[in-house]
């Protein structure tokens, strides 16, 4: 067989390079007007965004005295290590659960009619308008030892003693997972919508059962959505404050609350700033590392 549309690798490479070259060749002068239009925004960003971040960084090195004293605490203080450990553990659990549930929801949305899909999307999005405080209290009411869920479980004889579902780490993970599910659903849904539905039919037609088609074809193709959702959820989870404070029974201290305690309760501003700086660095580092393997822009829907 012959083929008249043989792609030439070099030709493709040259074609891909072309816009980049012309872009780099453009001078600053020719882009002048764009920068002029953008400059107010850039100034606002610099003043209200970058300046405070720099101030926080500076504080972490200068309070109470100049030097790396605060940063030494990362290795010398049990409290700091434990808070980071707790945060990582809770965020990991939240991420796994939120992505798993988010995937199930998104998958279901892909396989119902358009009317049901609209309804489901509404139910996914409605919690965005409910404050984190209200949601945390709602979980507290629902899951506490004499709450409706425990009453039901006990009255059905499923458990003999009420379960301790809130005021501990489990409660924090439940509350945070609930909060993060919409953030998991949306990137996954965007990804699933991009998967050619005929691919699963093709797999079935080639002899694969529904399960095998899913695991070998659909699931691998949804990996970018899963990873994107995972990163989004994990990073958002790192900053949780109210949910752990309310659902953790006072014993689950995550990084954000720890920073607040340092700054507002015991006035160790340098220490708080250091933790905040480490948190920021962790997030940036994570994005850089993940960005080496995956196109983040595409994954987070920036295209």
């Amino acid at each position, binding site marked *: *067989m012959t083929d008249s549309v*043989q792609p030439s690798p070099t030709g493709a490479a040259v074609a891909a390079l072309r816009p980049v070259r012309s872009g780099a060749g453009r001078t600053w002068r020719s882009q002048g007007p764009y920068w002029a239009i953008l400059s107010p925004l850039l100034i606002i960003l610099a003043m209200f965004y970058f300046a405070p971040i720099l101030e926080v960084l500076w504080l972490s090195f200068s309070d109470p005295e100049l030097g790396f004293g605060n940063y030494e605490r990362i290795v010398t203080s049990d409290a700091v290590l434990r808070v980071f450990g707790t945060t990582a553990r809770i965020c990991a659990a939240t991420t796994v659960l939120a992505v798993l549930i988010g995937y199930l929801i998104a998958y279901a949305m892909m396989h119902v009619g358009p009317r049901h899909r609209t309804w489901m999307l509404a139910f996914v999005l409605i919690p965005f308008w409910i404050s984190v405080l209200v949601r945390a209290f709602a979980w507290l009411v629902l899951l506490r030892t004499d709450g409706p869920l425990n009453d039901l479980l006990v009255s059905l004889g499923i458990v003999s003693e009420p379960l301790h579902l809130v005021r501990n780490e489990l409660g924090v993970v439940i509350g945070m997972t609930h909060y993060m599910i919409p953030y998991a659903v949306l990137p996954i849904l965007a990804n699933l919508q991009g998967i050619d539905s005929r691919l699963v039919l093709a*797999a079935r037609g080639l002899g694969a059962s529904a399960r095998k088609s899913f695991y070998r*074809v659909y699931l691998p193709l949804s990996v970018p959505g899963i990873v994107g959702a995972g990163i989004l959820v994990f990073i958002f989870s790192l900053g949780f404050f109210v949910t752990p404070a309310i659902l953790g029974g006072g014993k689950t201290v995550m990084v954000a609350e720890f920073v607040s305690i340092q700054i507002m309760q015991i006035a160790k501003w340098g220490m708080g700033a250091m933790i905040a700086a480490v948190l920021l660095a962790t997030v940036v580092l994570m994005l850089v590392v993940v960005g080496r393997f995956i196109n983040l822009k595409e994954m987070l829907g920036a295209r």
Partner: protein
Amino acid sequence: MADRDLRLEAISKVYGNLAAVTPTSLTIPKGEFFALLGPSGSGKTTLLMMIAGFVAPTDGALYLGGKPITDDPPEARNFGMVFQGYALFPHMTVRENVRFPLWVRKIAEPEASKRIRNALELVKLEHLADRLPRTLSGGQQQRVALARALVYQPEILLLDEPLGALDRKLRGEVQGELKALHAKLGTTFIYVTHDQDEALSMSDRVAVMRNGEVLQNGTPRELYERPETKFVADFLGESNFITGEVSGWEGGTLVYRAGGELLRQATADRSLSPGQRITLAVRPERIVASPQRNGEGNWLSGRIEAWSYLGKYIGLKVRTDAVGSVNLTMPGWTSDEALVPDKPIWLNWDPGAPVIVRDDR
């Protein structure tokens, strides 16, 4: 091997109020190259999907070799399928794509590798085995899809508009290759297309569909030369339609009146009686143009309205008093001098050339 025929028995699909496929019965013998031809929305793809098992019929049954398979899921039918747009797995290389159906069937090494090699050789893609589908051209992707559908030696290969995405020249080449492949493998091919030339040139048999209904089913020659309905006559190639009124019989020949002219038509249908209205389809290439009338037969006078030079032949449009505009073809080498606008001209055809069709438009 008549015992492996595929039989469709009054199979139908209804979506709400819409009948996508009206009850249809067909038998596709083992080894046949069978085409489902129709415009978009004619139900041909739905019918194919029911054969594949992706769409459950509303009613009716499917049999393979006399055994009902209506309720078998697609993976149990052991049919190969080439999708429109190929549906290659984008995260797998060519080799992995072709291996997929073997993996599903738990075919172990070294048998699997041998079969993959054979399948890729068959479509001449051994050298691209480790490439990802998106790095291949459309024609190459089409061949990967084919190799993937053939590697497990299915009894029946289903093809849904497999050449739809290829440019015209490439289509011609691949059509030839598919035909050769069919001859070599002896597998039943069921081929969905909206391209009449493709259907005619490749198939052993064609079913023409419209509005969920199979209008006619036969060899390409039968369909072209003996279309049963106006739609079939028009959809497969070009036809001139003449309407007339039966005036009587002249021996074994039917005489009818069209636009004041008495014309003759050879037909075996003795049920036609005087006064009845009939429609006839006549192919442009069966009409002969002459400067003057010479002899008996069906003669109509007219004037040249327009023509177009197409190399192999010249398409000519003649305005007649009796039946309006008529299209016909003349050899490409006909001299330009004969082609003068408004020039009087005589048209003649053999009484056996037209076919009486059912007016279904």
